[in-house]
Structures are given as structure tokens and as C-alpha cells.
């Protein structure tokens, strides 16, 4: 219950923005923490995170 509450300090919308921004620049300690907590309780954002990583691999492949 507590974990779930902490995980939702940020919304999925905010989490998705952090996942994207992390590709360009390191997040702050606070951003890393809230994102990690969110991902630990959110299956949809975990899926999104994997898809963004895949997109990066796919673009690398596109170049090869």
C-alpha cells in the first residue's frame, strides 16, 4: 500500500517524460528516485521504458 502510494508521486505522463529525457542527459538524484519508485509499481511504464530502449537499438540497426 505504502509502496503504491510512493510510486505515484509522479504520474505515468511525468514518468514517460523522464524516461525520454534520460536518453539525452542524466537525471537529477530526485528524478532518478521518483522514476525508480514509479517503475517499480507501474507495468505500463516499465513496458514503455523497454520500448524506448528498443527504439534506440532499432535506430542503431537502421544505421548499420
Amino acid at each position, binding site marked *: 500500500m505504502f509502496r503504491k502510494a510512493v510510486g505515484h508521486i509522479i*504520474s*505515468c*505522463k*511525468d514518468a*514517460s*517524460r523522464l524516461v*525520454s*529525457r534520460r*536518453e*539525452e*542527459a542524466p537525471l537529477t538524484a530526485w528524478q532518478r528516485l521518483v522514476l525508480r519508485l514509479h517503475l517499480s509499481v507501474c507495468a*505500463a*511504464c516499465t*513496458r*514503455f521504458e*523497454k*520500448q*524506448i530502449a*528498443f*527504439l*534506440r*537499438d*532499432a*535506430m542503431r*540497426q*537502421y*544505421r*548499420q
Partner: protein
Amino acid sequence: MAAADLSRDLEPQRGYLLRVARLQLRDEALAEDVVQETLLAALAGSGFSGKSSLRTWLTGILKHKIVDAIRKKQREPTVAAAFGDVESEMDIEDFDAMFNERGGWDPKPAEWGNPQDALNQRQFLDVMDICLERLPPNTARVFVMREVMELETDEICKELTISANNLWVILYRARMALRVCLEQNWFART
């Protein structure tokens, strides 16, 4: 590598270079020009060591030619207007359609299974091309600069005179749009 061998190996790379240049410049004639210059520079130079793939090496040359072309375009006011204004593609609120009023996914991202398998399929790269072409022009340009040409974010900001924050928003939008496009046109079929 002898010059004759090199020129024979360059020809098959032409299509790929043109695709990247078109996405970047959205100008058929100019894209042809930069690809031409890239191939000439590749033939004239002896920079190819065989350590990286030929395509990676050519992408490096193309990157410089495209940056030059963008610089030249920005100096010509009439063309710069047609080139589009990056700010107009900046509205992040468009993608709020992906979320409900509480900031939750709506719809939720689908399960893609083992997406890595797609990478070995020629058709997948074709779908990727279509999805990239569907992006708004400046969004595609910034995304390709970042993910295909691997420019650093501060280089991109400098070339396009946009702020880091604008850049993050544009890249976010590009990823959201590509994600949805791939999901609908590739992963949903399996």
C-alpha cells in the same frame, strides 16, 4: 581499399544515404546534392580504415555535409522561412491525448513480445522508414540528428538554435509518435 573497389561498394549505400538526407533536409534536390558530395568526398579521401562499417563511416561524412547545408539554408532568409519553424512543432500538449486527465496511460502501451526479432527483418526497417516520414518535418530532422547521426544534444541545439528544453520536448514527441506508429503498423499484426 583500392579506389575501384571502393566505388563499387559505395553504390549500394546510396539509397540509405538519400533516405537519411531526405529526412533531414526535406528537399529532394538538396538531398541529392549532399549525397553526391558525400560520395565524392568518400572517393577522394582515404579515411576509410575498415575498422568501422562502411555505412558508419559514410554516415559520419554525410553528417558534416548536412550540417553545412543546414547552415547555408539558415543564412538564406527566404528559404529559412520554408524550412519551417521548429517552435511550431513544440506543442507537447498534442501528446496528452495519450494520457487521461490524471496522467495515466490511455491506452496503455501494448506488449511487444520479443521486439529484437524484428530488427533482422527487412520489412521492419521499411515500416520504420514510413513511421519516420510521418513525423512532422522538424521533429524527424531532430530525431535523425540525434539517433542516426548521433550528434550531441548541444550540437543540435546550436545548429537549429533551439533550447535544450525545446530539444527534449521534440525528442519526446518523436519517440511517442514512433512508438505508436510501430505498435500499430508492426507489433499489432503479430
